């Protein structure tokens, strides 16, 4: 295959239907990653069409190429530095004027641009008719009509893109924005100066550089100055002069004047290329918003949706969860039967399958949760929830957008922390990531149920609710604390577009859901697998332990005694067999417990015991908490092993064992508090590290949460003792 390779970038406003077109073009051939150095999702897909290998890159949705946000910087840098063969600008036909703003900026950069006039059908229904040929002629850019959600015009778009890429004609000079004479003079002067000072070294076109310097574009400014060497001061003076020249004449900042003039240029084009009928259609989205963001009924509706989401996640998710549990059990039972006893079998059964199995059961819940979230996103409701929660989130010093990750934190912290990438401000993102782990995740619930159920019986529900509430309150306090100290945020001017309400496309919802779940599965799979093996290794080694009693002998003894004393009477025999079996279980359990106690895990736990003693947790508790580092689900099973819980119903048995141990209700509460707050699981930490791209903040997160947990548990334990509990 001798196919030529082309790089096609998709640019466009947010909500212009860009992602839909990208999904249509690439289908399942998508690769989701990050743009280097930043946490902005980079999506690309490689397809083969018309004998070409096309790499299609979905640039982040932006309103302009002025570098305000990471998205804009990423998009602009790609167009400027990576030199894509063609840039397809997706133009929202129903929002032509604003879409053309980005389009004129793309035209100002010398790259090959192609317009996809998207959603023209919707514009038409609003009484706006766009003459593509006129538009094409006026801007000197090829235009293709597309309807993204009906998958129309995709092939024509690609054909045109290939044609444009193969066209050796230089990018057309004309039809760019012409500013008013005074500005043109200033631009020309600066352009001349640059031409003299920086010959041959300029990374961008001279005119564009001059325009951007006059607009005080920080990034271009820095880059050009660093290139200018000896002329740096002269250049700076020249830029100041040009800016001053315009400011004097227009009595406003040059960037504002030039933006105004671009809009003037656009207004001229729109006037020529669009015929709008007078009939004003009702804006359905606006009317829906009048209800859904209403100050009185908006909030109850929102609560209803969220309640529905959790209901669906946990009640519907319960059934497949049971099936998966059954499958895991069947698998381990089958392996138990067919594999010969060995170290490998032990690793496979108690390490790998037990560990990974405990996570995979959450897959249905995760899938449903992500399905709901994708649905919220694709209908456009998500942006409204952020708006509704804004007032409340301000108590923490965050914007409403941070609410979604925190809410997801009640399900699982991993996707929750991944969801923080929608936040624009770096500081907001760090703060949200730091407080999200205090939202008690679903994996901690079994621990609460066991502990609270054992020691508070009928009041268990209340205790668990208070624990959840404590997490929320502490997250608010933490938020406020950090906001006024380490993460002092400027209250940046905030403006966000509310996307129109749309009927979600099944394909897009599925792609969204699958992308997220895939990431979850991959990360969880990897980390849980490794973590489980580590935990298993720590608790299984050293292999040969000097037991305090000779369990083997006792077992042997029991067996032989049972055989010797076998009475003739059938009923008596059955009773004896039962007794023997119970005694056997007892001994085996004690043996297992001693094994764990003397294993590396137990040794580590005992080593840490002095740390946990002041908060009323003994070495068994510390081992269990330690194992929770891998996954919180493991805490309960570790407790089960250490407290020698026996019986068919593991939870019941553990409760009995705990109740008869030296653990008091007070130390149970202390442990509950500690579990709520202490360091998140390995998968979460890995995600935190990946999203923050900083070991410093990751270490801070671990250190802060764990010390807060210890201090809170200490206060609870000793406060309780002081009060006489």
């Amino acid at each position, binding site marked *: 295959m001798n196919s030529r390779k082309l790089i096609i970038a998709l640019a466009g406003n947010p909500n212009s239907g860009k992602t839909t077109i990208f999904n249509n073009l690439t289908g399942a051939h998508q690769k989701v990653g990050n743009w280097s150095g930043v946490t902005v999702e980079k999506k690309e897909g490689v397809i083969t069409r018309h004998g070409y290998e096309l790499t299609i890159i979905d640039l982040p949705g932006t309103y302009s190429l002025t570098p*305000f946000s990471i998205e804009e910087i990423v998009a602009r840098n790609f167009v400027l530095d990576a030199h894509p063969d063609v840039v397809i600008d997706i133009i929202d036909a129903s929002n032509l004027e604003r879409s053309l703003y980005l389009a004129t900026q793309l035209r100002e950069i010398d790259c090959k641009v192609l317009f996809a006039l998207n959603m023209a059908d919707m514009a038409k229904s609003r009484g706006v008719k766009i003459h593509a040929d006129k538009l094409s002629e006026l801007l000197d850019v090829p235009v293709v009509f597309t309807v993204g959600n009906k998958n129309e015009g995709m092939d024509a778009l690609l054909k045109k893109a290939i044609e444009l890429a193969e066209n050796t004609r230089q990018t057309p000079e004309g039809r760019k924005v012409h500013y008013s004479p005074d500005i043109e003079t200033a631009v020309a002067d600066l352009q001349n100066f640059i031409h003299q000072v920086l010959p041959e070294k300029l990374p961008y076109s001279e005119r564009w550089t001059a325009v951007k310097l006059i607009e005080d574009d920080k990034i271009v400014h820095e880059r050009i100055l660093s290139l200018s060497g000896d002329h740096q001061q002269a250049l700076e003076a020249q830029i100041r002069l040009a800016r001053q020249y315009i400011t004097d004449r227009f009595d406003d900042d040059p960037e504002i004047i030039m933006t105004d003039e671009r809009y003037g240029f656009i207004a001229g084009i729109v006037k020529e290329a669009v015929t709008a009928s007078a009939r004003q259609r009702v804006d359905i989205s606006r009317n829906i918003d009048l209800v859904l*963001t*209403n100050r009185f009924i908006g909030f109850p509706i929102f609560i209803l949706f969220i309640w529905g989401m959790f209901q669906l996640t946990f009640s519907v998710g319960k059934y497949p969860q049971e099936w998966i549990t059954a499958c895991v059990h069947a698998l381990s039972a089958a392996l138990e039967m067919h594999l010969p006893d060995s170290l490998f079998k032990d690793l496979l059964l108690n390490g790998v399958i037990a560990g990974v199995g405990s996570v995979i059961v959450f897959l249905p819940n995760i899938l449903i949760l992500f399905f709901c979230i994708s649905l919220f996103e694709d209908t456009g409701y998500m942006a409204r929830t952020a708006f509704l929660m804004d007032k409340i989130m301000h108590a923490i010093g965050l914007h409403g957008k941070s609410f979604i990750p925190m809410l997801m934190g009640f399900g699982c912290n991993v996707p929750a922390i991944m969801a923080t990438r929608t936040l624009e401000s770096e500081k907001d993102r760090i703060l949200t990531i730091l407080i999200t782990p205090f939202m008690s995740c679903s994996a901690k619930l079994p621990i609460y149920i066991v502990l609270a159920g054992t020691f508070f019986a009928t009041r268990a529900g209340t205790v668990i609710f208070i624990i959840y509430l404590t997490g929320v309150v502490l997250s608010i306090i933490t938020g406020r604390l950090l906001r006024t100290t380490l993460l002092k945020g400027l209250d940046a001017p905030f403006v966000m577009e509310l996307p129109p309400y749309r009927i979600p496309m099944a394909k897009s919802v599925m792609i969204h859901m699958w992308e997220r779940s895939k990431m979850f599965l991959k990360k969880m799979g990897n980390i849980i697998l490794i973590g489980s093996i580590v935990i298993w290794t720590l608790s299984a080694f050293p292999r040969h332990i000097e037991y305090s009693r000779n369990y083997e002998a006792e077992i042997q003894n029991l067996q032989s005694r049972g055989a010797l004393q076998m009475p003739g009477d059938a009923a008596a025999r059955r009773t004896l067999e039962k007794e023997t079996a119970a005694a056997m279980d007892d001994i085996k359990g004690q043996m297992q417990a001693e094994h764990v106690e003397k294993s590396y895990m137990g040794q580590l736990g005992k080593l840490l015991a002095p740390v946990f003693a002041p908060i009323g947790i003994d070495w068994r508790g510390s081992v269990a908490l330690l194992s929770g580092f891998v996954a919180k689900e493991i805490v309960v099973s570790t407790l089960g092993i250490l407290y020698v819980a026996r019986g068919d119903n593991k939870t019941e048995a553990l409760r009995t064992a705990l109740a008869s141990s030296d653990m008091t209700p007070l130390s149970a509460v202390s442990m509950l508090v500690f579990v709520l707050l202490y360091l998140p699981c390995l998968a979460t930490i890995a995600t935190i590290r990946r999203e923050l791209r900083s070991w410093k903040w990751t270490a801070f997160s671990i250190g802060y949460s764990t010390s807060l947990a210890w201090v809170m548990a200490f206060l609870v334990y000793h406060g309780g003792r002081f009060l006489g509990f």
Partner: protein
Amino acid sequence: MKQLHRQEKEQFTKLFKQEAIDRFEDRLKVVEVFLNFEHHVTVGELTSMIGDSGVSLSPDFVQDTLKLLCCFGFAQKNRFEDGHIRYEHHHLGHHHDHMICMRCNKIVEFENEELENLQLTIAESHGFHLLQHKMELYGICAACMKDHVQIMPLTMTRQGERVVIKDFTCGSEARMRLLSMGLRVGDEVQIITNIGKGQMAIAAGFKRYVIGRGLAQKIRVIPVHKKNVSVGKMDEIHAAE
């Protein structure tokens, strides 16, 4: 009034003749036109008015005549804050005070008997013999005041209200951001939600935005005068509330 003017004209005729002023007829023409104005007039305005009545006179001549009138005490020269010099003729035994709008330069004349008497009393109490006085009150006229009050930050609007963006008082970066997102001066927007604290939601055309409180404070708007459909719609919204 007409009566008064004729009296004044006769007085000018007598005076001009006594003083042997040149171009008597032309000057009388100036006086005639000038007396027909019941408001303050600049030299330029007067010259063109005279031109309209069919006589062509140079502005210098007109100004010279007006100066003469001032000398005789028949007219008064006023320099207003905008730098223009305007003339008004004195009615015999008549005068009025002025209120000048600093925004639209509109001049409102007023007379108040009590005020006149009060001035006389004050002058007398100081043993001061009052010959003439000039009173100019500077301020904002009723029409401008109405406009002025109506410009308000976006945060002051009510749900459902329609307003037009008049100005952005935020920094250039925030302004650029608003511009690039398609919010510009002159756009009509409808308030979707304004809870009182926190962000607010607005709609402009087929686009809807959420704007932080701080930024909304810096967007200055005036209400759209309610007419046509929007009234009915707003009533519905109020009813819903």
